[in-house]
């Protein structure tokens, strides 16, 4: 009994110190040059990436048509055996699901919800994608408002679950998969380069989400661990920085950006 009690105390102590070390890690990020600072004991930092539903709503209202070729086939799920690949492709499939929901592609919604659910189960995500929601989605498949709400809630609860648990080995990867799939869809929806095209402008605007994504890697100290992805994202960001403020984006800038997006997406879904 004594031994068990000691074990119990040891585990509690480990949990306590783990939480403390996470707070310390976050505190270091506050000391950014030029940035207004607030002196406090602890600062919790959140870098937000807009949900794919928000971006796909923009695409939908811009008059873009749905293209099946933008999706990652749910059958590819079997290829993703490691936790890293599962996390990345959970993001990719969640983005695909959002794309199908916004463009009301009822034939695909259930398939993509199910593949998200499978990976969520594999990763141990308890919130967001559960059996009840699959049934609810099937019942309401012809109602775009309901499918939007269900998908919106699923993505929200899954991401919040990761945030609350501070799962540093999963969060950056899920968000990378989701973001890269979404920007890849934007870039593939651009038929011909025209710097006045709202889609081209949106692709440029995605640099702000990219900056937050890079900050997430740095906050969780995983830039070295996931160097393969971080370096491509960093390279992509350097191309964004080269866009001339006054002259705007050139065809060459556009090619460099879309090329890097395609490369990272190919690595992720392979």
């Amino acid at each position, binding site marked *: *009994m004594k031994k*068990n*009690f000691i074990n*119990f105390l040891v*585990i*509690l102590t480990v*949990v306590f110190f783990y939480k403390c070390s996470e707070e310390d890690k976050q505190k270091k990020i*506050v000391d950014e040059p*030029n*940035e*207004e600072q*607030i002196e*406090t*004991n*602890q*600062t*919790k*930092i*959140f870098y*937000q*990436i*807009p*949900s794919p*539903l*928000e971006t796909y*709503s*923009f695409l939908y*209202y811009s*008059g*873009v048509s749905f*293209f099946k*070729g*933008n999706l990652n086939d749910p059958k590819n799920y079997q290829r993703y055996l490691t936790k890293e690949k599962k996390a990345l492709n959970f993001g990719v499939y969640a983005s695909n699901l959002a794309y199908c929901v916004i463009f009301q592609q009822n034939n695909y919604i259930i398939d993509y919800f199910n593949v998200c659910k499978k990976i969520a189960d594999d990763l141990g995500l308890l919130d967001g994608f559960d059996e009840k929601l699959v049934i609810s989605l099937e019942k309401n498949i012809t109602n775009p408002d309901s499918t939007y709400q269900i998908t*919106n*809630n699923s*993505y*929200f*609860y899954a991401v*919040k679950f990761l945030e*609350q648990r501070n799962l540093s080995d999963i969060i950056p990867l899920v968000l990378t998969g989701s973001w890269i799939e979404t920007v890849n869809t934007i870039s*593939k929806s651009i*038929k011909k380069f025209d710097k006045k095209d*709202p889609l081209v402008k*949106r692709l440029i*605007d995605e640099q*702000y989400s990219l*900056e*937050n994504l890079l*900050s997430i890697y740095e906050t969780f100290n995983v830039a070295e661990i996931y160097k393969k992805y971080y370096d491509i994202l960093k390279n992509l960001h350097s191309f964004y*920085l*080269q866009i001339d*403020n006054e002259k705007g984006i050139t065809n*060459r800038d556009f*090619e460099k950006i879309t090329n890097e997006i*395609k*490369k990272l*997406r*190919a*690595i992720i879904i*392979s």
Partner: protein
Amino acid sequence: MRKNLIICVFLFIINSLYIYTQCHKKFACDDENLEVFFDEYDFKSQSAYAYLSNKDSAKVSIVLYSGQEYVIFVCSERELGNIDWKIVKPERKTIKKMIGIKMDSIVKYKTNEYGDYILDEKGDFIIESKKMITDTIWQVERITHYNPIYEKNKAEKPYFKISPQKTSSYTIYVKIGESKVSDYEGGCVNVYVGRKIKHGKTFRRFYEIEEKEKN
């Protein structure tokens, strides 16, 4: 039996710790002036939820897109007392200097029928063609100034509405003052970032207009 009991107690404590910090499920804003926004705006994209204690602070970096309407406010559990918060917009200036010219190659990789890059068995991209071009080398320096655009203590309204002309990132700073609760307690502080839900096709349908112009 005793071992099982200890495991149950342990799991209960861990679970309680988790539920305790689930501010996105546990707590919603109960201010009548703010409740109205929950029908018109979607808060599930960029809101942040934190469990904070006395003198804690939080920083939330968000992206607001042009052509959208947003509302931002902060709600907290009453026990935490007054919450000080403000929104800061980074104003960026990029200075580009040409530092040289280099030879660069444009590599064309093999794609599938959907235009996606494909990899070989080793996981490498398959090169289809290579073209050498001259490319300018730029030195890019970015200077950023942070301008407060909303401060709760100075504002008339407990919320901030914005329709950005240009897409930009914004930072929300939240600070907890001396609250009624002791140092060892805390509460939920939720930073709500809402995007107005559009009904109907309110965006300019660029491609449709382009098609009409062609005809």
